[in-house]
């Protein structure tokens, strides 16, 4: 697997800083926008403020973790994909996100067939025709099983017109 290694403790600290910022925003929102009530009739702000403080404490705990303890318990490094691995992951996730948008436009059947084809073509070097046949067959099977038999409501998009 081609990729780059980073110290886990640094990654965890970045997550902790982001969590700290979000905790501050989350608590500030509760403080400003929600009712406090009284001790005997607590309002909607009390619990979120407590949770915000808890996130901040947890984030500070992560920031204060000693490198040696963290390395012993979590491992010293983590790997992020690079090169072809990153490209493959990015292409599949990109196609996945486009699939969500396409679903509302062209309906689930067509969007899932297109997504299946792109994802399979990204993950395999088999003939495109064969993959297209697989994609259509799987999409139709899903449509029959989930939408027709199990009555799961999926977006129809423009196919509603036909």
């Amino acid at each position, binding site marked *: *697997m081609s990729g780059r290694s980073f110290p886990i403790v640094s990654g965890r600290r970045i997550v902790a800083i982001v969590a700290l910022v979000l905790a501050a925003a989350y608590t500030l929102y509760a403080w400003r926008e929600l009712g406090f009530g009284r001790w005997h009739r607590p309002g909607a702000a009390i619990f979120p403020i407590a*949770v915000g403080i808890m996130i901040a404490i947890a984030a500070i*705990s992560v920031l204060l973790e000693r490198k040696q303890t963290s390395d012993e318990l979590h491992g010293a490094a983590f790997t992020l994909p690079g090169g072809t691995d990153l490209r493959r*992951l990015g292409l599949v996730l990109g196609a996945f996100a486009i699939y969500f948008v396409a679903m509302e436009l062209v309906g689930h059947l067509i969007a899932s067939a297109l997504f299946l084809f792109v*994802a399979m073509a990204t993950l395999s070097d088999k003939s495109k025709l064969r993959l297209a046949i697989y994609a259509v067959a799987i999409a139709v099977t899903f449509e029959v099983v989930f939408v027709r038999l199990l009555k799961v409501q999926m977006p129809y998009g423009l196919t509603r017109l036909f």
Partner: protein
Amino acid sequence: MNAFEGLIYGLGVAMTPANLLAAFAGAFAGTAIGVLPGLGPVAGVALILPLTFSLDPTAGLIMMAGIFYGSMYGGSTTAILLNIPGESASVVTAIDGYQLARKGRAGATLTIVAVGSFVGGTLAVVGVMLFSAALAKVAILFGPADFFALTFGGLMVMARISGGTLASSLLPMAVGLALGTIGQEAVTGETRYTFGFLHLAEGVSLVPIVVGLYGLAELMLLIEDKLHAAARPQSVTMRELLPNREEWRRAVPSWLRGTGLGFLFGLVPGPAATLSSFASYRLEKAVSKHADQIGHGAIEGVAGPEAANNSAATAALVPLLALGIPFTPIAALMISAMLVQGVQPGPLLITQKPEIFWGLIASVYIGNVMLLALNIPMIGVWVSLLRIPHYLFLPVLLVLSVIGAYSVRNSIFDIWMLLGAGLLGYIFNKLRFQLAPMVVGLILGPNIEKHLRETLFLSQGDVGAFVESPIAITVWILVAAILLIGYLARRRAAVATAMAQESNV
């Protein structure tokens, strides 16, 4: 109705054709989910959750339970044949299981595992039957302060014992609690953190979060790792499935030890199945006559942990059925299914919906028999599932995750939540943060807030009310003891490591 009468009644409920079919479908789908990498038990149950809404509540819960213990069975198959655990509770199984497979005992090991899982699951149901009924009777007396102690204290215990540093669980748990505050608040009707998005007014849906954290995140790891796709299992023939007399003889005590240990772990909040399998492995190393072989391909190394993780998974039904409190992500999904079906989980379930309470317990007996019948003769089918190329099943699972996430509320917004949760799960996996406390925090958060506010309301704002009742005091003492023991054990291990390093220098 005593426990025995309840079981007879439950068997009557579980043996109806619709419920038998639900148990079979759940066990079958669960085994497939456990065998296939990428979809663990939690994501599998989450995906099936929306489909159970159209079923009768009892049948829906029976199917979910079937998927749960089916995937526990199935997870060990990849651990033994490919050295790739299908789920975290099978990590230990891979150590000796894979070594046994390399010695040509793959078939016999799979049989020992299947029978061990059956023994663990079936004996644990006896405990569930007795404990749940008794605990439910006591739990009727619990007040809001007691439930607050149980839910919040339970979450703290879970955060302590989930693995890694305390912060590795505490941070995801607090994020889960924060997600639970989004939407319309139950007491005053105020909307919180919706920022004008109408979809958020109903709150954050559990299914896209769980499928994203456990399913999509795992699929992303499989997509980036091409070496993983190259693994192919060896074939297993029917003749190879029969263990020899020595293997049977050595497995029996390990099964029984694993079952007892697993049941005790299942009663404690946290990743009971995983922890119990590790504890059972250590127990086998300590007490087995063949301890020197453990780690190099000993049958005790798979028999004990597999019985333990199935026993623990079954025992986790006790707090769910008796108290209505979920301490595992799967239990959280089952509670969520009950709420959608209009069934109120909690101590009154046994009297108000005995068909669900006893039907579910009885179905675990039946499901375990079905799993034994499914796993041993059909091992060839499960092995062939492992031969499905990644380029086919990864995109199929991605589409399935979208159908599962969308169908709960017919909302595109939930699919974007799925993607967001998947990315978060991917990052948390890489950085060794725990995911289970986040899911349990999300589902328990609104309950904790409700009990907190009820206690303050009923006590006219007296904070002392949280530690007034004997039940709340007992729970807090137990929570404090578990947290303290965990801290001392970790400190002792750290001191021992430091001393060992010093003596090496």
